[in-house]
C-alpha cells in the first residue's frame, strides 16, 4: 500500500468514525451484550453449536445430492426450482418470472443474497417498481445507501437522520419525530405497496431438502405479508442454505437470534412449504377471502451458486459456507463496533466472515478493501454459532492477497531485513511487521543507538512515509541485555534436583529483546514457587508473520519452535508462556500449522504464566512467597487469552492474595499487535481504545493499578492513560523494587 493510499484509507475511516461511529457503536454493543446475556441462559449452548456445526459440515459435503432432493420436493409441492450459476443468470430468471406475472410492483423482505445479486437494479431496468419492506432496508432504499450490517442494515442511521430523510422524501403533513411515528408512517406507506404488489420476493435463512420448505427468521412481519399478500412468491437463497431435514432446524432456531441481536427468538420464525396455503389477498378488496384461491399461488425457489461451488471445493474457504449470517462476528468485533460495515465490508457482506464471502462471491479485490481490519483478536471465535474459525479465513485471504500483489520496488534492500518465506511483491508494511523478530534482534544488538536513530524525526517521518508506521506512536525501546543473556549470566536459583517442577520459559521476541524485565519477573515468580527454570533458544512463534497473512513463514517458524520444545516436553518439562498471543499460537493456530499429534502435545504441555502460577498454588505452593499487590487492580486481559478462557487464572491468583480486582469488558484494546502502529489505522485503533480508557478512568477504576497481560495492550494502555500498565507477573514479583 502506498503512502497515498494509506492516507486515503485513514481519511475514509476518520469520516466514518465521525458520521456513523456513534450509532454503530451503540447498536453493536447492545447486540453484543444481548448475545452474552442470552447464551448465558441457554444451558445447551455448546451442544447446539456442535450440532449446528456438524449439520452444516454434512450439508455442504452432500450439497449436490441436497440440491436434487430439494428440487424434487419443491416440484412435488407444485413449485419450481431454478439453479442459477451466477448473479446475471439468477436475475434473468427472476426478471422472466416477474414479466410472466405481468407485475408492475414487486415487494421484498430482507435478503442479503438479493443484495449480492443486485436484483433491484435488474428489475428496475425493466420498469418494475421494487420496494424493500424491511424498515431498515426501506430507509436505505430511500437514502440510496448500502447496508452497514448484515442483520440490522440501517444500524448507522440515527432516529434524527431517518426523520430528516422522511421529511425530504415525503413531506408528511404531520411532523414525524419518535421512532413510533416513523415506524407507523413507514408501515402505512409500505402497506399500500404490499397491496399493489403482484410478486413477493423473500430470502431464506434455511431451506430443508426433505420437505422443500424455506425458513424465514424475521421480526417485523413484513416477510409474512410479502408472502401472503402476493400470488407469486420468489425465494432467493444461496445453495449453502440447504439442510437435510426439518428437524435439523432445531439447533439453528435456538442459536440464531441469541447469537445475532441477543433476542431469545425473533418474533417470527416462518417454516413455509410453498406455494403457501393461505387464501389469495390479491382479489377484489370487497369480495370475501375465498379458500379455493389458495390454489392460485405460484412459487419459485432460486438457488444461487455465484462462486459457492468453488468455495466448497476450496479447503480453506469452505467453512464460510457454514455461516448462517447471524452477525455475531460483526457485533463482537472491536473494529466493527467503531466503524461498521461501510468500512468493515465489501460489495455486499460485512463483518469478520465477510472476507470469506466477498473473496468467494465477488472476488479478492472486494475482500482486499477491508481484510486488514480483522486483527486476529479471535473474539468472534467463541461467538460464532457454527464455530467457524473466522480469523483463520481472514489470514488465508490475506496470504492469497499478498501472493497476488505486484512486485515491489524496494525488494533488493528489504530482503536482508526481512528473511521470510514469502514471495516478492508483498506489502512493505506487512513484511516489516511480519519479520518483527529479526528487527528486534538487530535493534537489541545495536541498542541504545538503534533507539536513538529510531526516534530521530527524519527517521520517523521516513518510516511513516515508506512503511506506514504512525509517527504518533512511540516505538518499542530495544534493550541491549536480552532476557536469555541475563539468565545465562545469572543462572537458576532453584536446581532441578530440588525443584517441585521444571519449566521451559518461552522467550518471546518482545520479552527477550524489549521488555526483559517482565521475563525476569517471571523467572523470580516461578522460582519462588520452587520451580526450576530453563530459557532455551527458541524462535518466534510465527504470530507476527501470521498476522500479516504470511502463512508459509509462520508455518516454518511453528516447525522450528516445535522442534526446539519437543524434547523438553518429552522430558516432562512444562512450557510456560508470558505473551498470550504466542500461547494462543500454540493452543489454536498451530492446529493448522503442525501435524495433529505435535499440535496436541504442545497444546497440552503449554501454559499461560498466571495459569501456571495458579496451578502451582492449587497444588500446594506457598502464596506468601509471592508479593501481594499493594493496591486494588484494574485488569485488562488479552483478547486471545480471553478466547481461550485463561483470564480467570489471573483474577483468581490476585483474589487469592487478597487483592480487589475489576476487569475490563471491552473486546479488544485496539492495538492488536501491529495494527495500531499502522498509520492508516491509528485513529481507529485509538477510537477502539477509547472504550477501554473510559472504563479505566471511571471513578471506580481511576486510582487502581493498571495491569495487562498482553504486550500490545500494555503499549496501548500507556498511550491511553496517564499511568503505565504492568504485567501480572511483575506485580507478583518478589524481587521487584517498588
Amino acid at each position: 500500500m502506498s503512502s497515498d493510499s494509506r492516507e486515503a484509507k485513514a481519511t475514509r475511516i476518520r469520516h466514518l468514525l465521525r458520521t456513523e461511529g456513534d450509532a454503530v457503536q451503540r447498536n453493536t454493543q447492545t447486540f453484543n451484550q444481548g448475545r452474552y446475556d442470552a447464551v448465558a441462559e441457554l444451558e445447551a449452548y455448546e451442544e447446539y453449536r456442535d450440532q449446528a456445526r456438524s449439520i452444516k459440515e454434512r450439508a455442504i459435503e452432500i450439497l449436490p445430492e441436497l440440491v436434487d432432493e430439494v428440487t424434487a420436493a419443491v416440484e412435488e409441492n407444485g413449485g419450481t426450482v431454478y439453479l442459477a450459476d451466477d448473479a446475471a443468470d439468477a436475475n434473468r430468471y427472476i426478471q422472466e418470472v416477474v414479466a410472466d406475472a405481468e407485475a408492475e410492483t414487486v415487494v421484498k423482505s430482507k435478503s442479503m443474497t438479493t443484495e449480492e445479486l443486485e436484483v433491484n437494479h435488474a428489475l428496475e431496468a425493466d420498469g418494475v417498481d421494487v420496494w424493500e419492506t424491511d424498515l431498515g432496508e426501506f430507509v436505505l432504499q430511500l437514502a440510496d445507501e448500502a447496508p452497514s450490517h448484515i442483520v440490522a442494515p440501517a444500524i448507522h442511521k440515527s432516529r434524527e437522520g431517518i426523520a430528516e430523510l422522511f421529511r425530504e422524501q415525503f413531506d408528511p403533513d404531520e411532523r414525524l419525530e419518535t421512532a413510533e411515528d416513523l415506524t407507523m408512517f413507514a408501515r402505512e406507506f409500505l402497506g399500500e405497496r404490499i397491496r399493489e404488489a403482484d410478486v413477493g420476493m423473500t430470502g431464506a435463512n434455511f431451506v430443508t431438502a426433505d420437505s422443500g420448505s424455506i425458513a424465514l427468521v424475521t421480526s417485523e412481519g413484513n416477510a409474512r405479508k410479502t408472502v401472503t399478500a402476493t400470488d407469486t412468491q420468489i425465494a432467493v437463497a444461496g445453495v449453502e442454505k440447504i439442510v437435510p431435514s426439518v428437524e435439523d432446524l432445531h439447533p439453528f432456531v435456538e442459536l440464531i437470534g441469541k447469537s445475532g441481536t441477543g433476542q431469545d427468538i425473533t418474533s417470527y420464525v416462518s417454516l413455509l412449504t410453498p406455494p403457501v396455503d393461505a387464501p389469495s389477498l390479491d382479489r377484489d378488496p370487497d369480495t370475501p377471502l375465498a379458500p379455493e384461491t389458495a390454489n392460485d399461488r405460484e412459487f419459485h425457489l432460486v438457488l444461487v451458486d455465484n462462486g459457492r461451488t468453488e468455495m466448497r471445493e476450496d479447503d480453506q474457504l469452505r467453512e464460510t459456507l457454514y455461516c448462517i449470517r447471524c452477525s455475531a462476528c460483526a457485533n463482537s468485533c472491536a473494529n466493527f463496533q467503531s466503524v461498521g460495515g461501510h468500512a468493515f465490508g465489501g460489495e455486499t457482506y460485512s463483518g469478520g466472515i465477510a472476507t470469506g464471502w466477498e473473496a468467494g462471491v465477488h472476488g479478492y479485490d472486494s475482500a482486499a478493501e477491508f481484510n486488514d481490519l480483522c486483527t486476529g483478536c479471535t473474539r468472534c471465535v467463541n461467538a460464532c454459532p457454527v464455530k467457524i474459525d473466522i480469523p483463520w479465513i481472514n489470514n488465508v485471504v490475506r496470504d492469497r492477497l499478498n501472493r497476488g500483489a505486484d512486485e515491489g520496488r524496494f525488494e533488493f534492500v528489504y530482503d536482508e531485513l526481512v528473511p521470510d518465506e514469502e514471495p516478492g511483491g508483498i506489502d512493505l508494511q506487512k513484511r516489516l511487521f511480519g519479520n518483527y523478530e529479526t528487527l528486534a534482534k538487530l535493534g537489541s544488538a545495536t541498542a541504545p543507538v538503534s533507539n536513538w536513530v529510531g526516534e530521530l524525526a527524519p527517521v520517523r517521518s521516513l518510516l511513516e512515509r515508506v512503511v506506514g508506521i504512525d509517527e504518533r506512536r512511540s516505538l518499542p525501546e530495544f534493550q541491549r541485555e536480552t532476557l536469555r543473556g541475563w539468565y545465562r549470566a545469572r543462572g537458576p536459583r532453584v536446581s532441578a534436583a530440588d525443584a517441585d517442577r521444571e519449566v521451559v520459559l518461552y522467550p518471546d521476541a518482545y520479552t527477550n529483546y524489549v521488555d526483559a524485565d517482565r521475563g525476569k519477573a517471571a523467572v523470580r515468580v516461578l522460582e519462588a514457587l520452587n520451580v526450576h527454570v530453563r530459557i532455551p533458544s527458541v524462535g518466534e512463534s510465527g504470530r507476527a508473520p501470521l498476522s500479516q497473512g504470511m502463512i508459509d513463514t509462520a508455518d516454518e517458524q511453528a516447525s522450528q519452535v516445535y522442534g526446539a520444545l519437543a524434547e523438553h516436553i518429552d522430558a516432562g518439562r512444562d512450557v510456560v508462556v508470558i505473551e498470550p498471543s504466542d500461547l494462543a499460537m500454540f493452543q489454536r493456530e498451530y492446529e493448522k500449522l503442525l501435524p495433529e499429534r505435535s499440535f496436541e502435545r504442545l497444546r497440552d504441555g503449554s501454559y499461560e504464566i498466571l495459569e501456571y502460577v495458579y496451578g502451582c498454588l492449587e497444588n500446594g505452593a506457598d502464596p506468601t512467597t509471592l508479593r501481594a499487590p499493594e493496591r486494588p487492580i484494574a485488569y485488562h486481559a488479552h483478547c486471545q487469552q480471553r478466547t481461550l478462557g485463561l483470564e480467570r487464572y489471573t483474577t483468581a491468583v490476585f483474589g487469592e492474595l487478597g487483592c480487589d480486582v475489576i476487569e475490563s469488558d471491552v473486546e479488544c484494546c485496539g492495538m492488536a499487535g501491529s495494527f495500531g502502529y499502522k498509520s492508516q489505522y491509528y485513529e481507529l485503533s485509538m477510537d477502539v481504545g477509547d472504550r477501554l480508557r473510559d472504563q479505566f478512568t471511571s471513578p471506580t477504576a481511576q486510582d487502581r493499578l493498571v495491569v495487562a497481560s498482553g504486550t500490545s495492550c500494555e503499549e496501548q494502555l500507556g498511550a491511553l492513560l496517564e499511568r503505565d500498565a504492568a504485567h501480572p507477573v511483575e506485580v507478583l514479583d518478589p524481587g521487584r523494587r517498588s
Partner: protein
Amino acid sequence: MESDVIGTFESALQEVDVRLERTTAADARGVLTDLLEPPAVGVPLPFDGVSLPEAVETEPTPDELEAATTGITAVEFAVADYGSVAIRSSPVGEEPISLYADVHVAVVAASDVLPDMKATFERLGDDARNGADTVLATGPSATADMGALVTGAHGPKAVHAVVIEDR
C-alpha cells in the same frame, strides 16, 4: 405435569408482553368477548363446544381484514419455554387474520402446549413434509430500525394467548 408446562408458557409469554388467559371450553366464548375490540375478524375455532363471539366476521374481505382491530384464530400448538404460538397457514385464512389485525388473539388447547423447541421440531417435521406452512410467532411484531424498539412494525401491535384448559 401439564400445569407446569402451562406455567412455563405463561411466564415465557410475560417476557414478551403477552397476557395469558386460562379458561374452559364452556367459558371460552365469554373470555373472547371480553378481549375483543371491534371490528374483529376470525377463523371458526376447531375446539369441541367453543364458538366465536357473534361480532367476529369470519368471511372478511381484504378491506375488512386491513381495518380489523382484533383477529381471533386457533393456533396449531404453542411452545411453552419460548412463549411462541404456531400459526398454521391454511385456506381458511389463519395467517392473514393473525397478521393484519392490530391485536392477535391466539387460542390454544392445553393439550397442544408443547414443552420446548425439540418437541416443536419433532412435530413440525411431518407437518412440513406434508406441505403445511407454519409460523412460530413470539410476541407482537417489532422493529428497532427507526432508532428505538417499536411494537407493531408490519404485524400485530399486541398479542393475547387464551388456553382452553379442558381441551
